[in-house]
């Protein structure tokens, strides 16, 4: 057995049993962050905070929500919104955070793409990040079912129908997922379980993996410079703080990180208090009705781009295009054949690729929102083809790239 001595303080008592000082060093004060970064490096912390907001508001909603097809709608729209003190706050925080979390995820993703933060040992950070995106999508979809309004029901119908695989006509699989011929009690109950237990567990596990994958390669920097963290951290610890290229995670980096979080939270609560309606679709304030489709079914804004890739094609081609769009981002580290880890602005054709992809996704998002007819149909089709074309072109244009 290890040798224990009489503790001189609470900290010493804990130190002997849990090595808290060591943990503090490994996780915070001697976890090194490059100095050459900007506010976009704070998005990870913004996401952690947003996830916490979702978790806390979700816990309070869970105490009054009823996962029953006859009670769900009223438990949300009457009990939580009108009876529970501050119930509206939890709901609006939950709804707004669910929407805003995707905005931050997209910024976080495109920051990674711009600075090449998925290359040279950082592949697993990218892959675990994309798995988190998938898990968050599942969490968003399952949560969207719970108020059991018209959009919940019909989004549930349309999305579960995707699993019939078009001409494969796998209705058995669709009925198995629903536990019924149509979304009904079994469906609501199992998506409730997924939303409050299984998917959050997966998300927490993946966050652990995402952070773990970050430790060895460390955070990227604005020039993609390969920093020798051992040398630079020794320089810092020896007192040459100005000459070192790195700083401590806490409190050096954290102080600026939390500054960004502070600004973000002001924006966030402005939305919660004054513009929560953008996250609350008016159609979903009608209770679910299996005999009436809403005039125009569209997903929440963060799914519009992939929805628009599905829409302009016939069923089978559409499904293949949609499946392509869902998985292709995961493969980015392997499709980018260039050895350069520098910002897109210094990478020739890739710079055009980056901006074309960003603009194309914005176009797809806007076209997904409007009814599928006339000029919008055509623009949507070309934007979807551009998306696929850009990914096919990526290995070739990055292969041609000169080493910088």
């Amino acid at each position, binding site marked *: 057995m290890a040798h224990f001595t009489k503790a001189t303080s609470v900290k010493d008592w804990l130190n002997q049993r849990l090595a808290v000082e060591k943990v503090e060093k490994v996780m915070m004060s001697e976890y090194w962050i490059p100095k050459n970064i900007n506010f976009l490096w704070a998005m990870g912390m913004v996401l952690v905070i947003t996830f916490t907001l979702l978790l806390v508001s979700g816990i309070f909603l869970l105490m009054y929500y009823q996962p029953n097809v006859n009670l769900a709608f009223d438990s949300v729209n009457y009990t939580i919104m009108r009876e529970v003190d501050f119930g509206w706050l939890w709901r609006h925080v939950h709804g707004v955070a669910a929407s805003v979390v995707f905005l931050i995820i997209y910024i976080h993703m495109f920051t990674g793409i711009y600075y090449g933060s998925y290359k040279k040992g950082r592949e697993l950070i990218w892959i675990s990040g994309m798995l988190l995106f998938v898990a968050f999508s599942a969490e968003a979809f399952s949560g969207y079912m719970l108020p059991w309004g018209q959009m919940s029901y*019909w989004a549930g*119908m*349309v999305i579960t*129908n*995707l699993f019939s695989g*078009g*001409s494969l*006509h796998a*209705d058995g699989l669709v*009925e*198995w*997922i*629903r*536990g*019924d*011929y*149509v979304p*009904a009690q*079994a469906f609501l109950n*199992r998506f409730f379980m997924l939303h409050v237990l299984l998917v959050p567990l997966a998300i927490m596990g993946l966050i652990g993996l995402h952070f773990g994958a970050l430790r060895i390669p460390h955070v990227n920097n604005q020039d993609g410079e390969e920093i020798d963290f051992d040398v630079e951290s020794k320089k810092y610890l020896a007192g040459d703080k100005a000459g070192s290229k790195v700083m401590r995670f806490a409190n050096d980096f954290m102080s600026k990180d939390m500054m960004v979080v502070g600004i973000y939270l002001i924006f966030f609560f402005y939305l919660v208090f004054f513009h929560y309606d953008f996250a609350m679709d008016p159609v979903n304030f009608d209770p679910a009705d*299996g*005999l*009436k*489709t809403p*005039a*125009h*079914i569209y997903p929440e804004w963060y799914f519009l781009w992939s929805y628009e890739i599905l*829409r302009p*094609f*016939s*069923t*089978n081609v*559409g499904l293949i295009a949609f499946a392509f769009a869902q998985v292709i981002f995961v493969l980015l580290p392997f499709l980018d054949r260039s050895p350069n880890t520098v910002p897109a602005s210094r990478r020739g054709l890739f710079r055009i690729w980056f901006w074309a992809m960003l603009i194309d996704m914005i176009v797809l998002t806007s076209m997904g929102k409007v*009814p*599928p*007819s006339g000029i919008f*149909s055509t623009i949507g089709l070309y934007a979807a083809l551009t998306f696929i074309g850009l990914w096919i072109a990526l290995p070739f244009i990055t292969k041609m790239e000169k080493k910088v």
Partner: protein
Amino acid sequence: MKNSSRRGFMGKAFGAVAGVGAVASLYAMKKSWDPLPSVKAAGFATLDMSGYKENELVTEKWRGKPIFVLKQNEEMLTKAKANPKEMDRLIKIGDSYFMVCVGLCTHLGCIPGYNPDDESFLCACHGGMYDFSGDVTKAPPPRGLDIPPFKIDGNKLVLGEEGPEYKKMLESGTTLKV
């Protein structure tokens, strides 16, 4: 086996037990997600076909799904008689012909709307169109509206049971099984 130690053997034995257990639990988990017997037992509906009016779409309910019933008028019948693909989709009860279809778009399951003036259906979700017999006229839907299993019983139509007329439709590929 000859070279492996006793620990190695124990590891393999555990692996075998755990493997059997894992497969068995996966089977149980799969079965737990199946539709319940009560859900399956409620899968029948009987429609009295004498009350429908020509060119007036009525939506009935079967297995939680909307069922379109459209009594055909003279004009539709004339068109259908010229096109066997449309005629095959209609159900004859007494002297009248009916379109009876699951009212969910075969693309992704939205409910198409009926326009009695041009006697066609339009799905607002992705722009698919069907004619008065439920046959598809504009993509993305891959096929016409599905016809539910039915049995003709005098003036009544029993949904959920498979009569000879329905089996013929299945064989000829007029509809897929729903």
